[in-house]
């Protein structure tokens, strides 16, 4: 692409805490924000658990990194695609997810939802449009 901006998509498919994939992906995403690329995230399969609300690690003593997802909007990462079928297979709905938002600079900094619910078929089309797809 002539302007040097590529479309990056980070696909999150793993539950948090049991493995390190979710945390590592989040760190790469935050680093990528420094390079002025077009970045979107996908949460599908067990990846939907990464943005579950009310995560409380007091009992397990692990680091609760879920608040960091709320910072994505401040890094202009505001396209978080969540696969509808993945939620349904796990007995979940949007109500189980964190309220992730961004402020739209083109609309007087109005606060808008970052989470976009998409079907499996829509997700396939979105992946097809990307320059780079990184799965974890």
């Amino acid at each position: 692409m002539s302007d040097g901006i590529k479309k990056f998509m980070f696909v999150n498919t793993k539950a948090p805490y049991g493995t390190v994939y979710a945390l590592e992906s989040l760190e790469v995403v935050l680093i990528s924000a420094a390079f002025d690329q077009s970045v979107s995230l996908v949460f599908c399969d067990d990846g939907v658990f990464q943005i579950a609300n009310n995560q409380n690690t007091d009992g397990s003593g692990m680091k609760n990194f879920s608040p960091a997802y709320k910072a994505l909007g401040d890094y202009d990462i505001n396209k978080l695609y969540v696969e509808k079928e993945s939620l349904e297979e796990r007995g979940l709905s949007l109500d189980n997810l964190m309220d992730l938002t961004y402020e739209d600079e083109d609309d007087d900094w109005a606060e808008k939802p970052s989470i976009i619910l998409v079907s499996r078929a829509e997700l396939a089309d979105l992946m097809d449009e990307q320059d780079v797809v990184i799965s974890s």
Partner: protein
Amino acid sequence: MAMLHTVNKSPFERSSLNSCLNKSKEGSSILLIEDAVVGALKGTKVADDLSAAIANKNVYVLGSDLNTRGFTEADILDGIKTVDYAGFVDLVAEHSNVQSWL
């Protein structure tokens, strides 16, 4: 004495819970830990299999791992009991053997 089975992988990603359910005997106990705790949630595609197991086996979930992932006792299937770390130790002590399904 009965066997204690532990499962630590999400049933949506691995088949270890399914293997455990198929190979555990009546009266044995199954403890869901780490990423496996999400299998205890209501309304999932594995809920029927787990509900069938509850009829003749004891099914437990580690509460702190459940809370870590954003869920509480109110979110899990009826008949699944929540235990804490001390309860985990009790279960190990009460059973003749432990089989870890990895």
